[in-house]
């Protein structure tokens, strides 16, 4: 038996590198996982493997968000909401296109918050629920990541306030902040950039999706942890990055 037996977990971006790892882990812990992603075929494929449900979800589309919550209601309602969908595009501040900035904020911040609003009433009714927002180590600041770090910082701040607002209803709200993780999103980095990133990680390797999934699974079952940011970065966020 696991604490997630009989629970319904909605994982946005569930077909991405980290998202897939989270779906697999939560399913292994007993949850019925709704693999929600823009890529319908990939979502269905993963859902088939883990015994979950595939769902097309565009986190920036209000109707799509409502449809996702309605889909989960048929299964018993969202018990665990994992806001994992995210997009990273970097540019120097002077040339950052406002439209791109807004799109990244919509995907990485506004969509997740809107989903929390939609999922919360059902959780409040059950007097139980877990919201886990995937932030990023970029919340601490990263060269060229103005939009991404702004959105992820906003998500961290909202996590803290939502934890205070929803805690009395038995709902915990936390964030996980991954560091450099091997995913299709990071595969395209130039080799020297990738190596420099790995050299800055005390553990000595890039993160793996399961490293992040383990943190999410922990928070999905933890009843007395809320409003926190769990940084899963192999130690990259401590120490002096310029020290030998």
């Amino acid at each position, binding site marked *: 038996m696991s604490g997630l037996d009989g629970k319904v977990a909605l994982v946005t971006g569930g077909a991405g590198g980290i998202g897939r790892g989270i779906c697999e882990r939560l399913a292994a812990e007993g949850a019925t996982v709704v693999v929600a992603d823009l890529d319908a075929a990939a979502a269905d494929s993963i859902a088939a493997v883990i015994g979950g449900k595939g769902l097309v979800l565009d986190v920036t589309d209000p109707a799509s968000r409502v449809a996702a919550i309605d889909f989960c209601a048929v299964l018993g309602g969202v018990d665990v909401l994992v806001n994992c969908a995210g997009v990273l595009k970097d540019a120097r501040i*002077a040339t950052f296109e406002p439209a791109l900035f807004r799109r990244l904020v919509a995907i990485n911040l*506004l969509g997740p918050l809107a989903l929390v609003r939609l999922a919360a009433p059902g959780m409040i009714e059950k007097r139980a629920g877990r919201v886990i927002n995937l932030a990023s180590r970029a919340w601490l600041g990263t060269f060229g990541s*103005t939009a991404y770090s*702004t959105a992820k910082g906003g998500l961290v701040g909202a996590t803290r306030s939502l934890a205070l607002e929803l805690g009395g209803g038995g709902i915990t709200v936390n964030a996980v902040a991954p560091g450099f993780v091997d995913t299709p999103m990071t595969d395209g980095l130039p080799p020297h950039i990738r190596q420099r990133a790995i050299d800055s990680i005390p553990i000595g390797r890039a993160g793996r999706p399961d490293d992040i999934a383990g943190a999410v699974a922990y928070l999905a079952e933890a009843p007395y942890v809320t409003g926190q940011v769990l940084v899963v970065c192999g130690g990259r966020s401590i120490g002096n990055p310029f020290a030998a």
Partner: protein
Amino acid sequence: MTTAAATEAVHVVGAGALRAVVERAVAGLDGSAPATCLVPYVPDRASLAEWTDTRLSAEVGGALDAVLADVQHELGHAERIVFVLPAAPLMGGRDSMGASAVTNGVLSMARTLSIELARDGVTVNVLALGSDADPAAQLAALLGPGGEQSTGQEIYLTGGSDLGRLRP
């Protein structure tokens, strides 16, 4: 002594409620590097249920859009940038999701900009103001002689009300 040169050197931009406090503080500066104090709009308190999609887009997305526009506009002028934010939503509060999203979003933007603009010799810092805080002394330190040595710093002027709590 207030000097015209000092006030001309410091731009105060943004639609935040703390703008008047910052303008008063800047008026008292005695000399400053070319600088911008950015005071973002922060949404009012509202429960989660009140955050409709439209409101999220306008008050959170719109506030962050405005900060980006202000920063980009000021890049040619400012050698020092100071973001001035209310401390309470930074720390988190009930019915403060929108305000916390904006203030913490700006906090992270400031962290990134401090890294990114260091190579251009531009400093970026954050002042987090508690109730009735007067930022004059801290602005004088950050914008005056010697201020070029501080960047990426987050200074809470809260009289210690946030001590014993995790900052974001």
